């Protein structure tokens, strides 16, 4: 079961944003979140209110990319490292219970790797599927309030991140490509098409 997402395709949006939105949909499909989460977010824009817990945020924390081969030769090819952040906030006066609850959320997210096609994101025609090469690192930590620990709402937060690695290629878009060449060779000069002494050659230029 998958959430319906607004149209987001790689002609107008980045692979990174599509991966972020896909993981938002995938987390929404996890049973631990479907029944109980009161608020979902993808940005920090709105301050979270006390009625919005349990809360889950799926954030595009940052993205870096490095050249894959020779940076100064040929079309650019990049290996991207997209860091997604998962913020899960619950409320509980019992910190041991809330920590176990956060750990369950963390483990449920890790179980997304159980899905055989987790690394593929289908796109509508004519786009190819977006492929995630791997998740190369991750981390998590548990937080229990502000620095003074004087917040009266007993919140506990799972901060978890995963780094998704994928590639992008940027071949030039050539609209006046050198696709073919017609050559006529003749003995007479000036050239007389009626002289019957000419030979025509058609060259197809390989594009690979």
């Amino acid at each position, binding site marked *: *079961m*998958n*959430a*319906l*997402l*607004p*149209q987001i*395709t790689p002609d107008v949006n980045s692979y990174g944003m599509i991966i972020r*939105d*896909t993981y938002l*949909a995938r987390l929404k*499909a*996890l*049973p*631990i979140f479907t*029944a*109980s*989460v*009161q608020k979902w*977010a993808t940005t*920090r824009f709105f*301050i*979270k*209110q*006390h009625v919005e817990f*349990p809360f889950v*945020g799926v954030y595009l*924390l940052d993205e870096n990319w490095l050249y894959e081969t020779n940076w100064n030769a040929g079309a650019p090819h990049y290996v991207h490292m997209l860091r997604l*952040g998962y*913020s*899960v*906030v*619950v*409320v*509980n*006066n*019992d910190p041991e219970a*809330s920590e176990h*609850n956060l750990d*369950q*959320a963390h483990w*449920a997210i890790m179980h997304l790797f*159980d*899905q055989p*096609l987790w690394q*593929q*994101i*289908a*796109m509508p025609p004519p786009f190819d*599927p977006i492929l995630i090469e791997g998740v190369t690192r991750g981390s998590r930590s548990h*937080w229990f309030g*502000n620095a003074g620990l*004087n*917040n*009266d*709402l*007993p*919140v506990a*937060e799972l*901060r978890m991140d995963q780094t998704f690695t994928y590639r992008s290629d940027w071949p030039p878009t050539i609209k006046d490509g050198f696709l073919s060449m017609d050559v006529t060779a003749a003995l007479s000069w000036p050239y007389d098409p009626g002289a019957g002494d000419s030979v025509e050659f058609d060259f197809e230029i390989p594009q690979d």
Partner: protein
Amino acid sequence: MSMTSTGVDWPGEVYEPNFDYFARSINITPVVSQPGQPSYAARGIFNTGEVYVPAMDGSLICTNQTIVDILVSEFPILPMQRDLIDIPDTTIAGGSFELASVSGDNGGGEITLTLKRRDMTALVAQWLDATDYSVGSPVFDQPELTVG
């Protein structure tokens, strides 16, 4: 110059009159400070104000810092962390709290209790059997071309 050197009886001349005016009733269940003992009535000056909790990626959670000031002289055994405190509603809302922190004496016989609301909004964990759910590729909405 210290407070006591002024000759002011802070508990008697300052705090008690203020408590007579500002304090409200509270009920303390001493689950830690006096295990097994019933709850008892007391009084304290309640205050609450906005405070923010930083969360992932610089996001913020809006909540309150809620405290109750009490007079040490009114408590044979002081409350302790994780005792329960109920503050009945008056014209001002109260609530059900757990004692998070007990400050030291302010030098005048008053201490501050920092409270956490008794609340719980938990996730319900379930065994994840891959046959029970699918999180494969999401279904994307298709654009519709409208010619008007």
